[in-house]
């Protein structure tokens, strides 16, 4: 016991002092706890940073749920799910890496850190594929929102279903054109100030409609503009909502900022990896591995919430 006391008390004299213990700390334990407290404080600021974006999301979704229900159909759900699994797996390898560092298993640590970085590249690669499709199809933020097609048309559908939908749309358009023609023959002038979507609202806004001219077909079409109840539509029926670009503004800011965090995490892990190859970590000093791991997990944590909020809207 006396030798133990000496080893711990004499570290200012040098020879027993672990080289990684900064001189302003008394013990490795104090250094570790202080570092951990610091990284947790940093992580709270990260959460608060993202909470601003989650707040924007909540406010816009509460006010314009139709925009989210419509625009999320442009997202590729399988790719999002795969990315979730990739990130969860990288969290496992990172947590295991911390264990390996604690146990001084150098080769295992190096391998696990390399695997974690690889998962980071995988995540970014899949994200890149998703972004590229959105840039190609004009599914972008604000004034750049100019989608080429209705959601669901480019994915998860075989060509037959696509053709069916096009045929249905053409048929509907044709019938509406006929109905509008019939109505405009009956109603001489549209009411003052009336300038929206005649085919949809003409009958209700006029006193002089010859109701006999409204075909049952037309009435049926109006009813089908809403989603059939009791099922989750993977395609959109009816007109797209206005201001759908709101969704993509939020989507790109949230996933973009998250992507930057993934890149930052990968850089930090690469730094840890280099130090690990030099054998700097062991049972008495693994603080950087643990702290970088915590950062990587918080990135994973944020994705755990982003994924259902952006991809799994119903």
């Amino acid at each position: 016991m006396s030798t133990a006391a000496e080893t711990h008390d004499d570290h200012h004299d040098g020879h027993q002092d672990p080289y990684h213990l900064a001189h302003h700390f008394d013990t490795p334990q104090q250094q570790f706890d202080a570092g951990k407290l610091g990284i947790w404080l940093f992580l709270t600021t990260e959460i608060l940073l993202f909470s601003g974006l989650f707040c924007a999301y909540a406010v816009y979704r509460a006010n314009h749920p139709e925009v989210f229900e419509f625009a999320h159909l442009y997202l590729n759900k399988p790719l999002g799910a795969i990315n979730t699994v990739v990130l969860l797996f990288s969290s496992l390898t990172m947590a295991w890496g911390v264990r390996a560092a604690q146990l001084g298993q150098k080769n295992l640590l190096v391998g696990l850190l390399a695997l974690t970085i690889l998962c980071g590249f995988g995540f970014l690669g899949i994200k890149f594929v998703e972004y590229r499709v959105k840039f190609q199809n004009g599914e972008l933020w604000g004034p750049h929102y100019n989608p080429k097609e209705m959601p669901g048309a480019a994915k998860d559908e075989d060509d037959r279903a696509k053709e069916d939908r096009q045929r249905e749309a053409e048929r509907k358009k044709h019938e509406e054109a006929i109905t509008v023609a019939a109505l405009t023959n009956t109603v001489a002038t549209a009411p003052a100030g009336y300038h929206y979507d005649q085919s949809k609202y003409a009958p209700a806004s006029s006193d002089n409609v010859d109701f006999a001219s409204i075909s049952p077909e037309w009435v049926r079409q109006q009813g089908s503009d809403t989603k059939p109840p009791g099922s989750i539509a993977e395609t959109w029926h009816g007109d797209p909502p206005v201001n759908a670009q709101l969704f993509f503004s939020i989507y790109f800011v949230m996933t973009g900022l998250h992507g930057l965090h993934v890149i930052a995490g990968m850089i930090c892990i690469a730094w840890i990896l280099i130090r690990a190859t030099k054998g700097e970590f062991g049972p008495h000093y693994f603080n950087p591995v643990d702290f970088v791991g915590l950062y990587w997990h918080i990135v994973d944590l944020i994705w755990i919430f982003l994924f259902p909020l952006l991809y799994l809207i119903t």
Partner: protein
Amino acid sequence: MSDHAAESSPTPAEEHGLAHVMPVKILVGVFAALIALTVITVGSSYLDFGPYNLLVAMIIAFVKGSLVCMFFMHLWYDSKFNLFIFMSCLAFVVLFISLAMTDTHQYHNSVRGGQAPNVPAATYGEAPPAAKP
């Protein structure tokens, strides 16, 4: 205090006391649970729970997040002060978002019909001066 042969041999850090070492079984088990919950949350998005879909998705996300925090991030075994810091951060997030949400439907009167829920389409054609473009 343990024998100080521990100082020279590569023993687990728990003996040294720096931090708890996570058993591989728990790590892999937590990962399996996270994958299972991911499958459940994706599957539930194809079902219709009416207004509860968001609630279900968020509950699953909270369970997944707790698993990551407690085991991958060691909060379960850590100094409780770290947990306290984390929880107070979440409390402020809840405060922030819930206060921001209190006036959610306040401005519907100035929103053109059809652009927001609960604003009747009858306001079409007589767009109020305050309407958004």
